């Protein structure tokens, strides 16, 4: 009986505690998972990259594509938010610099939130030079000193300030077939200036006479489109030559074959936002770090030596620079691979787990340049690896309080 009293007392306390907890609770209803939209589920695509001047980041560059606009940060980075996976023309503008356009395109199988990387090098405009009608004159592009303009007397009606700046073209959309690779591109201002007499535009062959590019042509940019205007063949005396009758952007283009090779993907990292078992939603910032840029698969000099046996060391060095420069006109920037980090915010509903996988895509393209070596035209092939960007793949796991479908349950 004594035991019963204790038991009764114990049970009474338990009962009172249980009832008391239930009756005194301030929560009105049971917890259910807070459902939120994860920003990473939104159908948004990004063009992100870096703008450089030489080896330095360039801040304050206005970057536009379609209706999206951004300005480069102190580290030269930018990102544009696009609403659909189309082909875009990206414009880079900054006062005092040559304005450049590049092409960025999202493949049809691009995932939501995928990032296409873009690197661009801008060039500060050179100081203007005055050309007078009285006498002929030669203007040499100041920085690289590869391009020269030879004005005959009377080419201009009046003394005219001209600015000639060699610059790097923007990246082009990757495509198979023959494309124009620019050995050198110059911005000539005032844009639209016409001449009374043909002006000779010539580009130095950095190598010796024993090796030069074949089938070089002159292209003029009009409304963002490059049009071939004639040949700019090598004159056998150190220059590729053409004539112009007005100013625009001019390019010495070489027909370059482009053969798409392999595409690879690599899992860079995964971030797990584990909110299983919790009914509140959870937010987490994610750093998306990926590579951008391109690199030659191998070393240019080795490739040249292998394919152009007997090429002198100085010609190897000179031709390597020319090849890499022309590749830059297709791929953007200069040969280098860097890293960039984007900040993303992820939100996960209650009792769910999200895994964000960052998958980087690289493509290898084999470019072919026609060069004349030892009197023979040789197709010089250069394999290039390009870092295309990164896909964010979000997979979710639902907790016990969610159900995706009904296959039954038992207990």
């Amino acid at each position, binding site marked *: 009986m004594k035991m019963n009293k204790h038991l009764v007392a114990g049970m009474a306390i338990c009962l009172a505690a249980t009832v008391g907890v239930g009756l005194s609770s301030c929560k009105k209803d049971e917890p259910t998972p807070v459902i939120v939209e994860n920003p990473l589920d939104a159908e948004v695509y990004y063009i992100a990259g870096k703008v450089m001047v030489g080896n330095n980041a360039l801040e304050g560059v206005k970057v536009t594509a379609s209706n999206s606009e951004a300005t480069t940060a102190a580290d030269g980075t930018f990102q544009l938010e696009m609403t659909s996976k189309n082909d875009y023309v990206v414009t880079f503008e900054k006062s005092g610099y040559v304005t450049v356009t590049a092409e960025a395109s999202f493949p049809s199988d691009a995932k939501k939130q995928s990032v296409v990387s873009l690197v661009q090098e801008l060039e500060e405009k050179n100081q203007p030079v005055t050309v007078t009608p009285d006498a002929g004159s030669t203007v040499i592009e100041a920085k690289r000193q590869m391009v020269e303009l030879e004005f005959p007397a009377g080419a201009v009606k009046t003394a005219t300030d001209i600015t000639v700046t060699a610059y790097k073209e923007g990246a082009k959309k990757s495509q198979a077939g023959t494309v124009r690779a620019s050995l050198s591109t110059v911005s000539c201002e005032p844009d639209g200036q016409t001449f009374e007499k043909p002006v000779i535009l010539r580009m130095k062959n950095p190598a010796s006479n024993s090796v030069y590019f074949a089938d070089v042509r002159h292209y003029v940019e009009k409304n963002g489109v490059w049009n071939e205007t004639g040949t700019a063949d090598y004159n056998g005396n150190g220059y590729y030559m053409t004539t112009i009758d007005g100013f625009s952007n001019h390019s010495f283009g070489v027909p370059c074959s482009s053969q798409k090779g392999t595409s690879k993907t690599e899992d860079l990292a995964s971030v797990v936002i584990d909110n299983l078992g919790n009914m509140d939603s959870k937010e987490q910032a994610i750093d998306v770090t990926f590579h951008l840029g391109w690199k030659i698969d191998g070393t240019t000099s080795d490739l040249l030596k292998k394919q152009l046996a007997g090429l002198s060391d100085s010609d190897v060095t000179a031709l390597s620079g020319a090849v890499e420069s022309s590749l830059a006109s297709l791929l953007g920037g200069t040969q280098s691979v860097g890293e960039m980090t984007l900040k993303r915010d992820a939100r996960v509903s209650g009792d769910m787990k999200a895994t964000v996988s960052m998958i980087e895509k690289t493509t290898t393209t084999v470019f072919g340049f026609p060069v004349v070596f030892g009197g023979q035209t040789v197709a010089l092939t250069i394999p290039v690896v390009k870092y295309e960007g990164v896909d964010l793949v979000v997979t979710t*796991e639902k907790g016990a309080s969610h159900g995706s*479908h009904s296959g039954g349950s*038992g207990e």
Partner: protein
Amino acid sequence: MLKIYRILFLFLLGCLFGWKGKATVKEALVDLGMENVKVAVQAGGVCIAYEDNVYRGTYRGLFEVIRTLLDEPDIADENIQLAVLENGIPQIRVSLDREFVSAYRQGRLSLAAVMKGLAISYDTDEVMKALKGTKAVNRSAGKVDLVLYPQVRLQNSWLDKIYGAVLDIAPAVEIGLWKGASFTGQVIFPVWNNLVGEMDYIRAGMLVVRQEIRLPKNVFATLSVGNFNQDRIGVDLNLLYHTNSDRWAFGLSGGLTGASTFYGGRWEVTQWRRVNGSVLVRYNEPYYNLRFDLSAHRYIYGDYGVRGDCSRHFGEITVGLFAMYSEGEVNGGFHFAIPLPRKKRSKHRAVRVRLPEYFDWQYEAQSGPRYTSRRLGRSYETRPDENRNRTYYNPDFIKDNLVILAEQSK
């Protein structure tokens, strides 16, 4: 004068039984492990009430009691009325006619024939009236059972796994307090699961104080307060009426509950705001031991529905199918209850450690994400040993199985 002699004879008979036979009956039943044993002698025979917490199921202990009474030479050839108790509450009356007792003892009837001759009914009012005031021996109050409940949960609701599975062991302390009152305190220990959530934590299972009473005319009432399963906490009242033959039964139940959850390892309860209830009609078909349940529900989350069950009892194994309809969604499935070892448990220890008598499981097909998200058709149980075998005292079923046991004991 004849009347006086008759009274005197009955008085002497009562004294004789009370002095020797009554004590013998009590001792014999207590030796069997029966609890809350009461014996009363009347002019028409002897009335006995007992509770079986030793033998598994509803008829095995009864069989042992009847056999013991028949084989006890000190018990006279009297009409025997047995009231079978559960937690001190009478469930059924089993009547054994003195003719059968006598014939069995003289070898004219087999044990199986005696069992066939039993009269079993849900009407215990008379026998309990006869036992009123009689002191019970070997009381069950204060006795503690530690019952180790295995819990297996499977759910196929996710695309990234074939089945979500949860395996727990949930020991429960079950204590009889006083007549009809009991306490169950259960803790759930996770063993293995491939889900994340409450199931990862050691958490409270059933924490229930329960009071059962039997009202006149075969009406059983149970009031339960505490922490139930299905993440519910609250109060539940259940009323069940059986006809004497238990061919028909009618039930009402209602509950007021809140949530009791363990998300993130924190025990959180909410206000008791959800009202549920049900109305039950039951028919027991005697030939195949089939039970048909038809019930209308207001389920936990406020949805209204109906449910039909068909269960068949194969001895201690029960299997069944069910179909239900709630808020435009159809569901269905199966359930079963199978016995767990052992048939007989220890009877003398202060704390009896054991497995539950039965393992029961229900599988429902459900019907899509809406069913899951809306939590349709949800109901709770108020005790961990709730299954279709527990307190299944259907007279036809009991008698059939007593006969089977008698035939097996030859």
